[in-house]
């Protein structure tokens, strides 16, 4: 990559553009926290419980966020810090964004990350990522309320069934997510099993020490990860 391009992909203008997008994400999260606290007061849910939920989400996010940080460095070398910052703050995890950026460059006949990767290819990569991310933003903005309508129809006002339905959706989704790793065998399969077993262990432990509960998933994933990494050597 030429020094001029390196300068452009890390230029102030792109930082400002990225900042605007990241701000939208944070503002949305902030508005939802405020609304959730208001709604909690209306349904007589104690503030303490709300903060516990918020904290549990934050604690659980630490491990996966560190994993993102490690992947991120590689992407920064090719599309620069600001665009990596922006794209990894919104929809499209790192592998998705890298694929979209690669396809954009390929469309204009340049290999992503090669010495031929020039400003035009960088622009094309940006179009690739933008057009791809737009797919999810478009569908969600237009159809989320319809999905709520479907959920109400299927849930049908039976709280026990609605609880099972929600849990079954999660069980099905995570059965899918873990099966790829199980079928891969080796340390990945070990990671699935170790993560699952340590989660069961930590949840049992949390019955005796309730303060532990909000850490269980965060702990289980780190334990599972290190067990898998141990066997990967």
């Amino acid at each position, binding site marked *: 990559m030429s020094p001029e391009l390196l300068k452009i992909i890390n230029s102030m203008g792109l930082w400002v553009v990225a900042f605007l997008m990241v701000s939208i994400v944070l503002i949305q999260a902030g508005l939802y926290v405020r609304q959730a606290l208001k709604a909690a007061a209306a349904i007589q849910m104690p503030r303490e419980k709300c903060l516990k939920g918020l904290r549990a989400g*934050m604690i659980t996010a630490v491990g996966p966020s560190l*994993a993102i940080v490690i992947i991120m460095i590689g992407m920064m070398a090719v599309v620069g810090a600001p665009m990596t910052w922006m794209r990894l703050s919104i929809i499209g995890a790192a592998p998705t964004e890298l694929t979209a950026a690669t396809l954009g460059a390929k*469309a204009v006949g340049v290999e992503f990350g090669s010495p031929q990767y020039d400003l035009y290819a960088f622009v094309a990569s940006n179009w690739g990522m933008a057009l791809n991310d737009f797919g999810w933003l478009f569908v969600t903005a237009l159809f989320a309320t319809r999905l709520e309508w479907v959920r109400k129809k299927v849930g049908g006002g039976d709280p026990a069934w609605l609880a099972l339905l929600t849990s079954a959706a999660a069980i099905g*989704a*995570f059965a899918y997510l873990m099966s790829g790793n199980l079928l891969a065998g080796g340390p990945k399969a070990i990671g699935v099993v170790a993560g699952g077993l340590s989660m069961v262990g930590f949840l049992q432990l949390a019955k005796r020490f309730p303060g532990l509960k909000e850490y269980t998933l965060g702990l289980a994933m780190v334990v599972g990860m290190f067990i898998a990494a141990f066997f990967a050597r």
Partner: protein
Amino acid sequence: MGNRDQDFQNTFIRPVIRIGIITLLAAWVGNFLPCLYLYLRYGIVPPGGMILKIWVMVASVYGAFYIVEPISYYAILGLSGTYMSFLAGNISNLRLPCSAMAQEATGVEAGSQEAEVISTLGIAGSVIVNTIGVTLTAVIGAALLGFFPPFVKKAFAYILPAVFGAVFAQFAIKYPVVGLMAIPIPLVLLGVIKILPIWVVIPACVFGTIALARLYYDVKSKGGR
């Protein structure tokens, strides 16, 4: 609709929709700002035909997911969770686990109004942490990698299988029968049949498990009577 439902509709659901749509429309614009900036500043924009080509290329890989993912994950994420998750991304590795943990830690019943509120807070918490993480990394840069010992850096390659196994276990110990029924679906689809595209496998797993759970629920409630 009960009074309580009507109140919740007004205090939560309606504002959630308003906030969601406004922020997502802003994101539509923000998403294309880099392209616009690069055009205004450097005068470079691919011709229309080229943009169309790029769009066809990315959509042929991911297009089905634009539709399948919001539908498949909706029952877990809820309305506000869907607006947040499909703006901030990282759904399987962050939003779903964080929503699940927030609900577990507070002991709310899945699918209830309380769960909807707590899930919103859990997901928002994960957005805050994850955004801080990527922001620090973007600013500090590669120097940050020096903080991680090599073994730890390598270990993070295995966090995803551990997350998936742990969240599965969290739900499956509550509904062991459903858990046992769910596992064969993806194993057969991915391990035996093998030819189905992923965008078919995801909804097949989610809605297949929901259907089996419904059967189980009907059989169990009949037996109870």
